């Protein structure tokens, strides 16, 4: 069993090969390649307009690349090119084996239905048909993301920003995905709430052995969560490596600028 597990972890989960995207003459993303392994957290950092979000959309199959391809190792162990997946398969992947945490929780949640239904939606989408079990699983997940069970029947529009973000995480993790995309998950939260959220994400990632691609402009987030960092500028990856290596000993002038622009504590 241990051997099998090792074998599992030896194979990359997500592979990007020379991904490019251009909008007319503007190249938003140029020639990005990397492999992501199970349980690994990859941070993509860079300033606004550097192509981070375009890259994330291509990786998650929401945007077709102009050139290059993304392949993903499905639960059956077969690695498949995302563009060859039918729409039904892609959408199924999106609500079972993947998660996507939006910067704005309103995009990732149904603001008008209760928190319990928000968490339970993915379960019902894969055919759960027992109210009691759906509700138990939902309350279990609310506890895990530190939301008071008494709020289970409240709509997320009555929640604070931090709670909404935690609810969004619970909603994504309920089907036990293997890969989660996060787009600036701490954007717009105040510092203490950010810290609690990051702490929560870090423990969930370790506990569930999640692979994560996290897009952020906040180097502190990258340092706290990620194993590896990719620095982007003008649509290109200019530097990549282990997080502490890149952040403590940046090679590229732009990365040095980024790192030095953080105020010392």
């Amino acid at each position: 069993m241990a051997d099998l597990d090792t074998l599992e972890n030896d194979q990359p989960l997500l592979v990007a090969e020379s991904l490019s995207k251009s909008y007319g003459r503007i190249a938003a993303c140029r020639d990005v390649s990397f492999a992501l392994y199970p349980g690994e957290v990859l941070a993509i950092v860079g300033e606004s307009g550097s192509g981070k979000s375009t890259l994330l959309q291509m990786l998650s199959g929401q945007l077709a690349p102009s050139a290059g391809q993304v392949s993903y190792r499905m639960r059956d162990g077969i690695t498949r090119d995302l563009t060859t997946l039918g729409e039904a398969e892609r959408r199924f992947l999106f609500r079972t084996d993947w998660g996507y945490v939006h910067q704005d929780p309103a995009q990732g949640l149904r603001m008008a239905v209760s928190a319990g239904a928000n968490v339970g939606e993915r379960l019902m989408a894969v055919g759960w048909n027992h109210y009691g079990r759906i509700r138990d699983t939902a309350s279990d997940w609310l506890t895990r993301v530190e939301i008071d069970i008494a709020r289970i029947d409240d709509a997320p529009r009555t929640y604070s920003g931090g709670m909404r973000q935690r609810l969004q995480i619970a909603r994504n993790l309920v089907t036990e995905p293997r890969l989660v995309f996060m787009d600036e998950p701490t954007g717009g939260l105040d510092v203490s709430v950010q810290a609690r959220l990051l702490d929560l994400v870090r423990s969930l990632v370790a506990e569930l052995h999640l692979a994560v691609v996290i897009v952020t402009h906040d180097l502190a987030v990258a340092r706290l969560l990620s194993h590896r960092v990719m620095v982007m500028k003008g649509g290109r990856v200019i530097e990549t490596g282990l997080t502490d290596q890149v952040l403590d000993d940046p090679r590229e002038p732009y990365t040095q600028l980024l790192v030095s622009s953080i105020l010392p504590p």
Partner: protein
Amino acid sequence: MNAPAYNFAYLDEQTKRMIRRAILKAIAIPGYQVPFAGREMPMPYGWGTGGVQVTAAILGPQDVLKVIDQGSDDTTNAISIRKFFAKTAGVATTTSTDEATVIQTRHRIPETALHEKQVLVYQVPIPEPLRFLEPRETETRRMHALAEYGLMHVKLYEDIARFGHIATAYAYPVKVNARYVMDPSPTPKFDNPKMDNCPALQLFGAGREKRIYAIPPYTQVVSLDFEDHPFEPYRFNAPCALCGAENSYLDEIVTDDKGGRMFVCSDTDYCEGRQAAGHHGSLSAAPYKERAQRGSHG
């Protein structure tokens, strides 16, 4: 024909052909909403423009038409649509469910069991069952195409979370032929079991939204539910005050401002038929009065 200014049944033949093609497609794909080029009808949207167009397209000179509104043959909507077709098509009309070959209905299915020679035409205000959870039409179409119906259960979940039971009492979502989730129009959920395996053809017309859908005869129609909260039809727990029926859908009628109310069958034809057959409820007129009235008429 007593209205030479119009084509038979008001609509021109080309329009009828277009609507019939949509109907045939709808029958071929049970529960699927077929778009059609809905016409302006001489009545406001919400008064049955969709149902009227479907009826106009299927009506033949030999047909006998019955129109009901909330089960009743004698409300404004029912009377005016019945008169409309009596005038523009010259067809025979009736209030008897048994005698009718085409029944246009708003919000009810008759209590009397339908048979193979009948077509039931529903007036539909909002054909999309997912609409209030997913406002984007592009998205709901994709969800139907991929049979992604988890969202429908989210609505039922919300009901149970809020009220302790599935509180949706009308327009209760059904799955047709184990494929498409469909809005049965705002019929009470009491009527849902009648749609299942029904010998009559059921057609649904939505005029404002320009959609037609259908349930062919003898098609499986299942009301959605949870294993631990199964579907239950709802009925006021009382007999009809006029005919004493214990199994018909009831209207509640407030009779005074001191809390007095009576429950009567919403299906007027069914109720009158039972009374004529000698059944009586707690508030029905005395038999001699009926006989006296009948005597004075003829």
